[in-house]
């Protein structure tokens, strides 16, 4: 398999370049948008914050939180995708294909419609629950039968589960028209208008799952060579798989809770990471985090321009970028066909 960065030192240089790129896109995300902001102004707002300047207020209350959320969620989804692809040994696995987004959203909409829930923490747990149920059902449906779970089976099962959850969501929205517009924007996946307060309650879980993901990387390497092989090497595969699954649900569920449905980051980024550093998950996971963050920031920035002054929700942007990539992969051919 092709791999761009062979040696350890190249990979470390790659990480440094990645961090620099991340900082650049982060900064661009602060500067570009409906209100043009000069580089100096942006810099000033960090060094000497002036609450009377409109621009500086915009930067600190809107642009910066937005950029932070985009980078963290990007990393989130990318790592979730990488772990799912390893767990199912399926190059097409990712939160959106698995119906995780649709499941989480359905549960959240259900909860909002029928229970008086307002706190984000509660919604987050409900999103986790929805994500978990969707992921389990797709995995279960995809592995039914005596044959290996092929990519096609899992993708189809995911599509069926997605169709199920989204028609429930739609039904509830039709019944409860008042809340429609708000929920819709959230459904489409968006990082705008999200304050840091929305991120804070979720942050601990995200951090824990980042650490879990890095800690699991070595075991994922072994599991990736096949379950039987891993068992033969003395791995407690059941435990490892459950831990991976929990990490995935925490990552994907928290992402949905904060920003709504953002697809395809989890599908594309692991492939880019493998292209860069090969098959070692100890490198893949940090690279996923970097590339995912950069990609989501870029998608967010691009979405601000085509239909000014409105914005294209970031979830729509990632679908428009990601779906062609998905089709490209399908055309290139899958091993398990």
């Amino acid at each position: 398999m092709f791999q761009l960065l062979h040696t350890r030192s190249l990979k470390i240089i790659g990480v440094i370049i990645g961090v620099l790129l991340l900082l650049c896109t982060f900064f661009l995300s602060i500067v570009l948008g409906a209100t043009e902001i000069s580089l100096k102004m942006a810099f000033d707002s960090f060094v000497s914050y002036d609450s009377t300047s409109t621009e500086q207020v915009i930067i600190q209350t809107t642009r910066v939180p937005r950029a932070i959320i985009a980078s963290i969620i990007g990393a989130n989804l990318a790592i979730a995708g990488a772990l799912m692809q390893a767990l199912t040994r399926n190059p097409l696995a990712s939160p959106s294909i698995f119906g995780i987004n649709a499941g989480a959203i359905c549960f959240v909409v259900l909860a909002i419609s029928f229970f008086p829930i307002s706190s984000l923490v509660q919604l987050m747990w409900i999103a986790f629950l929805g994500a978990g149920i969707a992921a389990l059902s797709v995995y279960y449906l995809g592995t039914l039968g005596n044959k290996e779970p092929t990519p096609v089976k899992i993708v189809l099962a995911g599509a069926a589960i997605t169709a199920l959850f989204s028609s429930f969501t739609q039904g509830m929205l039709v019944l409860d028209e008042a809340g429609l517009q708000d929920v819709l924007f959230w459904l489409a996946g968006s990082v705008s208008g999200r304050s840091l307060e929305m991120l804070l309650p979720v942050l601990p879980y995200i951090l824990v799952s980042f650490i879990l993901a890095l800690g699991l990387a070595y075991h994922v390497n072994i599991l990736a060579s096949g379950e039987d092989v891993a068992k033969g090497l003395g791995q407690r595969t059941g435990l490892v798989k459950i831990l991976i699954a929990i990490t995935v649900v925490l990552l994907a569920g928290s992402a949905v809770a904060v920003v709504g449905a953002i697809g395809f980051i989890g599908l594309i980024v692991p492939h880019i990471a493998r292209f860069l550093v090969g098959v070692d998950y100890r490198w893949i996971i940090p690279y996923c985090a970097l590339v995912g963050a950069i990609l989501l920031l870029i998608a967010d920035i691009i979405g601000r321009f085509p239909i000014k002054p409105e914005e294209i929700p970031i979830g729509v942007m990632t679908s428009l970028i990601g779906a062609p990539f998905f089709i490209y992969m399908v055309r290139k051919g899958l091993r398990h066909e």
Partner: protein
Amino acid sequence: MNKRITFRSNRGYYSFLVEKKTLTVLTMLFVLTGIFLVISVGVGSTIISPIEAMKTLFGYGFDQHTMIIVDLRLPRVTIAILVGAAMAISGGILQGVIRNPLASPDIIGISGGAAFAAVTFITYFSETLSIKWLPLAAFLGALSISIIIYSLAWKKGVTPIRLVLVGIGISTITSSLTTLMIVLSPYSAASQAYIWLTGSIYGSSWEDVIALLPWLIIFIPLAFICGRSINVQELGDDMARSLGSHVQLHRGILVIISVALAGSAVSIGGAIGFVGLIAPHIARKIVGSSFGSLLPVAALIGSLIVILADTVARTAFLPLDIPAGVFTAGIGAPFFIYLLYRNKNF
């Protein structure tokens, strides 16, 4: 005991083989559809007894019943029958062509194309153009999306797996564009589009029936004629070719039939989900996988499902009229999962 009946014309020019079981099942389904029809036109905010409803249907009822049944409820039930049959046949064909029981017009993106076109129409043209152009818009959407999917899946011919995967990819694009459109549109258009998206045959009129009927009259018989070629395609491309079937040509024709049926059904009934998925499944459980029997049985089962879903949807929460699509999903999805569980090798 002979399980099959042979029909042959005198000089053997026409000849058919029909399984007795299929005939029995079809007769029973016809009777059931009739019963459901009578019940369905009878219930609603004004309840009319089945006997009165029968009288009215045959032209001997009270005037106010005639108005309610013939002008309001009957067209709606007729649309339910037609939409259900079209979706079921469309799904049955796709499952045969793609050789996967999970395929259906909703899942491989045909309905998504129709929905995108319809929502575009509602958002941008509903003030300038009459709403009666909506079906055409939806059909054109379904058709062009199918052409896109088919050509992207083409690489020295179309394999079933590429077709379904490309379809899923494309349908995420159309659904995200649809969401974008709704997010950006004014509130009234958004909720109208949303109801349509969920699948509702609310307010169907005889005009809708007349708009839909020609499609079905052309494409359903065509589907039955092509059933033979699905049968051999199900044995795999190699087998079908060695039996002398023009696999790629027939596959193209079958997909066109399926798109025409799904597109026209979606244009009238919105995205009533899961009918195209589960109706052929149930049919296969009853009469087996031979398409000569499967398609007609699936069509009637599809009709029954939509009548049932729509009747429940418009009466359960009176005066609210819930989209039938919510109920087809509600009944369809768990049932579908059960079918998959029973039927493990796909």
